[in-house]
């Protein structure tokens, strides 16, 4: 094939410092790891970056480790969704469940949480779970490393707090201390972009409730009022919740639906998204409550 296209070399750093150096020196190079978002834009002619900064060869990025005395899982930016499904389903159940719904096996073999974050789509499957778990994003530039709280990360549709000279190095996800759930609605039973998704984390050790909403607003969202209401309900019952009243579950669902700010688009109506979120939140809550130690068996069959 004859080619007269000006062809910038692909940047392939093998160490993290080199990667940061490349990022600083080539601000017009697009970072690429799994390529599952970027290559679609390139193939469809929507994006023509001057060069690619390939991170797949950077040493150490594709592994995860426990830090903070085992209380936090540090997931390297190159860790695939497949690895998360296979290795982190106990430490990060909501994230692992979300990872399983990402695209196809081929996509999960390449795609990463860091890539999900860098794209910052409101439909990114990992986001609700990261919100529900109060994850932190480790980013770094030649200037300095910094930790971005997940609540500060998403600033608009497909826009994040990541600066133009920064790279995502890892995501820190607190290990589960109680039951978690992730549920996602789409019109196909596999390989589908979320019409709406919801994640719930009952942080038994921290006496906290974490939530995350996907595909139902300009950014991934948190259902704060739902979290607060449930924390108040559970305040003295974390260790023996017994049976939680139906109206609490309904109220939780309603608050989750109200927390969304969805729009009508090709994937679904705002009305449907809000409704679906309420249903997902109710169901996720009843499943997680049933999994709490000391839960009443009656909880299981409801909703």
């Amino acid at each position, binding site marked *: 094939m004859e080619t*007269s296209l000006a062809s910038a070399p692909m940047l392939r750093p093998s160490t993290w410092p080199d990667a940061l150096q490349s990022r600083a020196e080539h601000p017009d190079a697009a970072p690429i790891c799994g390529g599952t978002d970027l290559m679609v834009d390139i193939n469809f002619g929507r994006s023509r970056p001057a060069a690619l900064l390939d991170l797949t060869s950077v040493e150490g990025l594709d592994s995860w480790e426990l830090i903070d005395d085992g209380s936090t899982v540090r997931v390297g930016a190159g860790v695939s969704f497949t690895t998360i499904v296979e290795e982190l389903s106990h430490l990060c159940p909501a994230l692992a469940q979300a990872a399983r719904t990402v695209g196809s096996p081929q996509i999960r073999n390449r795609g990463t949480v860091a890539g999900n974050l860098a794209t910052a789509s409101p439909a990114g499957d990992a986001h609700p779970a990261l919100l529900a778990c109060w994850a932190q994003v480790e980013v770094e530039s030649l200037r300095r490393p910094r930790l971005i709280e997940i609540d500060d990360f998403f600033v608009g549709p497909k826009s994040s707090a990541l600066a133009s000279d920064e790279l995502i190095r890892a995501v820190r996800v607190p290990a589960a201390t109680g039951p978690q759930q992730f549920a*996602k*609605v*789409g019109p196909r*039973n596999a390989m589908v972009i979320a019409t709406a998704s919801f994640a719930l984390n009952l942080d038994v050790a921290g006496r906290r409730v974490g939530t995350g909403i996907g595909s139902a607003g300009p950014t991934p969202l948190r259902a704060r009022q739902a979290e607060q209401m449930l924390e108040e309900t559970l305040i003295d019952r974390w260790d023996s919740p017994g049976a939680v009243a139906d109206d609490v579950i309904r109220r939780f669902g309603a608050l989750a639906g109200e927390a969304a700010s969805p729009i009508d688009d090709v994937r*679904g109506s705002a009305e449907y998204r809000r*409704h679906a979120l309420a249903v997902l939140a109710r*169901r996720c809550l009843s499943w997680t409550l049933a999994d709490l130690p000391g839960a009443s068996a009656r909880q299981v069959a409801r909703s």
Partner: protein
Amino acid sequence: MTVTDTATRSSASAAADGVGVSAPRPDGVPKVDGSFVYSSDEYHDGSLWGVTLRSPHPRARILAIDTSQAAGVDGVRCVLTHEDVPGSKLFGMNTYDQPVLAFDEVRYQGEPVAVVAATHPEIARRACELIVVDYEELVPVTNPEIALSGQVEGLPQGGLVRHVRIRHGDVDEARATAEVTVKGRYEMGTQDPAFLGPESGLAVPLGDGGVELYVSTQDLHRDQRQVADCLDLPLDRVRLVLSGVGGAFGGKEDLNVHIHACMLALSTGRPVRMVYGREESFFGHVHRHPAIADVELGATRSGRLVFTRVRLVLDGGAYTSTSQVVIANGCYFAAGAYDVDNVEIDGYATYTNNPPCGAMRGFGAVQSCYAIESAMDRLAAALGMHPLELRMRNAISEGDLLPTGQPVDGPAPVQEILSYLRDLPLPADSDHTTGDMRARPGGVGNVTRGEGIRRGVGYALGMKAIGFSGGKDDTCTARVTVWIRDGEPVAEVHCAAPEIGQGVVTLQAQIVRTELGVRTVELRDSDTDIAESGASSASRQSWMTAGAVVGACALVRDEILERAAAVLGSPAAGLSLDGTEIHDCDGRPVLSVAELLGPESVSHAYTYSHRVTEPVDPERGQGDAHIAFAYAAHRATVDVDVDLGLVRVVEMATAQDVGTAMNPLAVEGQIEGGTVQGLGLAVMEELQFSDGRIVNPSFTDYLIPTMLDVPPMPMKIFEFPHPDSPYGLNGVGEPPNLSSTPAILNALRDATGLELPRAPVRPSDLVIELGGRANRRASARPLQA
């Protein structure tokens, strides 16, 4: 490429892998090992890449086109517009009304405006972006009812492609005798064929000023005529060769890259490849017509249909394509596979500024089957009768008159088909509180542990003509040649019939083995060097090709036997041919074919015609328009999460009459594939538009079923041989696509109690809590078995 197929299953019998067994595909090995050449794989040294510039507007006046900047790009070899079209500036399936490259006005988003050839596809794409087209945007007409009103300007023929009227009996009189009547409006969104192999081809300029085109298509000769007309070349200077077809389903009947690639090749003097990307593909082929159908049924209390009235509107989009035929086919079968004395059908195909619609598997009958089968369930509910019982009570049978006045001839085993579905045990209930989420609505989305799930069961019956109808009688020609290689007879078949996945190549080899007993059969490329085969469409190609190959084999056999008779000095009538040997009247081998032929070959072509059909009259739609009919029915079992509106189809049971199963495995594959395309149309597949613009031209948002969306498909294949066809076979490909969609809709209605007046059903339509917009319906009684 030439495909050689040697029967391998059993060398003991020369007729191994003949007609009626599941012979392996001759193109199977190259298709599994990656060596099969599809049109997007065609390659030629020094070839350029062609890319198309398309209109971003659904309707706009073209004021000027400036290609100078694009033409100056390094690597660009030529840029062509409508001014460069050598011959007819218009093409089309039946009516030449679609510009090769737009001039004056673009009438749909995605209409081709210019083409570029360059040394690399990316260079060509960038050059396209440098072409300056000065558009004056106009307000598009996107609503077919408004187009029909005659109130809008700027549409051809005042917005009407064709009005089809069918009058049978007297509906107004019959209405007075009907004890129960129901009315309903049923809408259907736009389905896309979504074949995986994109439109593509390679054009090679020839020394004599002609051109050779390797392309994927459903009909080489119809393509050839259009290409030659637009290039202003005689037919013998335009040679088409069938390249590997990666699926078609109707979407490769209309031209795509053909003329553009040839123009670029002839202008540059170099071979030109064109391959559409997925997004472009959604603009590069016709879609299934979206439909609005109003159905009124009248019946006696005992459930005997008294009248059927249907008004069907199909939006044909910007250009005619096959719309005038699709609307006719939709109307022919709008009353379903039922015997009803009084029928009134009015069908309208419209022009709008939506993308053109044309052929897709089922060809209008998908839309009308969906409508009538939805209405039949409504009638069953109104009668308090089981929907299957209502269907069996009114099922058509041999000798009944169709609404077009034609008596149903050939087998019509509708009772047998429905009885199978009635007697087949229903799938077991699932326990969703345990078990696997992947078996529930929502699948891996992890949305339910049994909450909100309801089961529903639905039935539908479909009927369609096989072959071209209404006086469009066609032919198929095949040549069979036998010679000796390494002491063994070899047969070659040459036929233009496009192999589009259905297995017509397998069938040709099977027939030659059965007719001549020759084990090794070679299939020549399908091309325009031989007379036409007609299209691989209308479920006709097996019938037509079989007729041609059987005929050619007979001529070859006759000549071989006559030659043998001359050698042996005995009458040919007493001799028979069994592959390698000539046998006498006692079955004894008396002469080997190798000995008889030596270095010579025997070769004959045969042209097969089906029986004559006639057009229906424009006033009452009466006429013997069809050569044959085929029937299929489905029983769908679904689980619906009525809180989230998600669906898991649990089972699709189906029964179909295929005449003779020429290749049982291939027949099953057609039925399963057609059923799943109908499933997609029921629950997920819709090309969506906003003011004439496609909003989901990608496989991310135009969803087709995955393996996790399809259920087990128990099936019964009935074989009632058709009296008029070769071997008694009947068309197979389209019938399963008809009844699948309404069976699922009826099952969803059964599960939810909602009217569900539109397909595909979206999750929000199925949420009972949000169901205010879709009315509740009465429920039907259980089947009195």
